[in-house]
C-alpha cells in the first residue's frame, strides 16, 4: 500500500500521516515539577505510565514526594534534580514527609 503512495511523482509527505497514524507508539514524556519555597509547581500533574517526572528542587532543604498510599517515596536532596519513571496507573495524592504542608497530586493514566 505504501509503495503505491511512494510511486514516482507523489510527494513523500503523503505517505507519512498513514505510517505515523497506524504504527507510531505513544512517546513517553518528561514532566518537570519544580520545588521552590516549599511548593510543588505544578501541584497537579496528569501523566501516563511510562512518563518520567523530573523533580527539580530549588530549595536549600531536602524534600520528598511521598504517596499517601505509600506507593512511592521520592527524596529530592537540596538543589538537586531527581527523576522518577511512572510505572503504575492511578491517582496519587502525595506530600513532603519533612514538610507535610507541601502537597500535590499525580494522575497517571494507563
Amino acid at each position: 500500500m505504501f509503495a503505491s503512495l511512494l510511486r514516482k511523482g507523489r510527494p513523500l509527505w503523503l505517505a507519512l500521516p498513514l505510517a505515523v497514524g497506524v504504527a507510531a507508539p505513544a512517546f513517553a514524556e518528561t514532566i518537570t515539577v519544580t520545588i521552590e519555597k516549599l511548593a510543588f509547581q505544578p501541584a497537579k500533574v496528569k501523566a501516563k505510565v511510562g512518563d518520567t517526572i523530573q523533580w527539580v528542587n530549588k530549595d536549600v532543604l531536602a524534600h520528598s514526594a511521598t504517596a499517601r498510599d505509600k506507593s512511592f517515596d521520592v527524596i529530592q536532596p537540596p538543589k538537586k534534580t531527581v527523576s522518577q519513571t511512572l510505572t503504575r496507573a492511578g491517582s496519587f495524592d502525595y506530600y513532603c514527609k519533612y514538610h507535610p504542608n507541601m502537597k500535590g497530586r499525580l494522575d497517571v493514566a494507563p
Partner: protein
Amino acid sequence: MLLRWNAAAIAAACLMGCATLAQAAGPAPTDPQIAHIAYTAGALDVAVAKQALKKTKSKEVKAFANDMVRDHEAVNKQALALVKKLKVTPEDNDTSRALTRQIKDEQAKLAKLKGKAFDKAYIDHEVAYHKTVNGALTSTLIPSAHNAELKSFLETGLKIFQGHEQHAEHVAADLK
C-alpha cells in the same frame, strides 16, 4: 521593665501556651533584631535536637531530630548569607535572650528524662515551640520587617516552621 518589652519579647517569655499574646503594644523590632531572633530560633532548635539525638532510642524521633538539625542549619546558613548581602548586623535583644533562657530551662527538664518519657516530652516541646515561633513570625516579625528580601526570607521560614509543626504532630500521634 514591662515598658521595654515589645510584642515578640512577651510572646517569647510566655513560650509554652501564650502564642496568641504577641499583639501587645510596644516598639516593633528592627530588621537587625528580627534577623537575630530568626537565627536564634533556628539555632536553639538545633541544640535541642542534638540533645535528643544523644538520648532517644526511637528511630522515628531520631529521624525527626536529624531533620531539625539539617533544615535549621541549612536555613541559618542562608540567613547568614542574606544579612551579609544586605549589610545588616544581627542585634541581640530581649526576645532572643528570653527565647534562649526558655530553651535552656527546657533542656534542663529534658535532661532528667529518658526512654518514652523523654521522647514524648521532646516531641511535645517541638510542637509547642514551632507553634510559638509561627505566632511570632505571623504577628510581629514578618509585619515589622522593612527590607523586602528579609520579609520574603521570613515568609519562607514561616512555611518551613509550619511544616515542622505538622511533622512534629505526626510523630506525636505515632508516639501515643
